[in-house]
């Protein structure tokens, strides 16, 4: 039980850690940083530091929002679905505007995935 609560703290702390790591003194475009924290910057366009720093925290916070909606709004299905559609659409617009991925193929694949999820919710 206590072990689970420790996990809860870690789960909540992850986006904060990621954001801190990406906006800390280390340069995102630095080769050593890329090798060490490959999972954070992999396939992302590291030339744009602000977009890269925000991408993973936004990605994780959106998931946290989805889970929160699932538990809090389970008695109000219509509002829950409306909120999910709204968040998904907002993320889709953010993704297409910011263009966080380096390769065009990655951008297209990810945008297609997100668009399909949006249409599924609709």
């Amino acid at each position, binding site marked *: 039980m206590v072990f689970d609560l420790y996990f809860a703290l870690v789960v909540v702390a992850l986006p904060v850690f990621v954001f801190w790591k990406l906006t800390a003194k280390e340069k995102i475009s630095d080769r050593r940083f890329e090798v060490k924290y490959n*999972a954070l910057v992999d396939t992302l366009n590291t030339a744009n530091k602000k977009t890269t720093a925000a991408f993973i925290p936004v*990605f994780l916070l959106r998931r946290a929002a989805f889970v929160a909606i699932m538990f809090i709004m389970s008695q109000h299905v219509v509002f829950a679905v409306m909120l999910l559609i709204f968040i998904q659409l907002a993320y889709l617009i953010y993704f297409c505007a910011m263009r966080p991925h380096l390769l065009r193929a990655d951008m297209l694949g990810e945008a297609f995935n997100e668009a399909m999820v949006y249409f599924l919710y609709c």
Partner: protein
Amino acid sequence: MKILLSVGLNQLWSMCNALQLIYLIPFIGIRMRSHEYELYGLLIEVASFDILSGLELSENWFSYQSIDPYDEIFGQNGYDTCSFVKNQSLFYVTFWILIFVYTIHALARKCVKKTSWRVTKRWRRFIDRTLWWSPLLRFYIESYMDCLVNVILNVSMFKYFKENGVKGGDI
């Protein structure tokens, strides 16, 4: 390990990420037909990386008490209990394997500092570059959503204990 967890399977990770958002739909409370529930059950197994059988594992390895599912929908879709360890057995086992590997790595690092053996130094540098942060973060980012669901389910256990008079020490 690097190929498996970071670079090589980007498209697959991307697909899993989309699946993780889709499998929430039954939990919101939308009524569906039985065969749709079955399909979602399949998706949940894939997207939540539920490869190990959590219940069997926890029953054989730990003396965890059986706890009822959060509600009927969660029970039907693979969350048979509110316990984090039972639902997230793969995450739990992998977590301890990683702790074990990193402990050995840390010990090796300490030992190698005292020697000047070139091969060991090279090995240490390789491990530092490939194993330390990236796989751990990747693994954690991918299972973040399922972890969050299970943590909230686990917190709901407090209410269950209060209602059924189970003490924390019994688990």
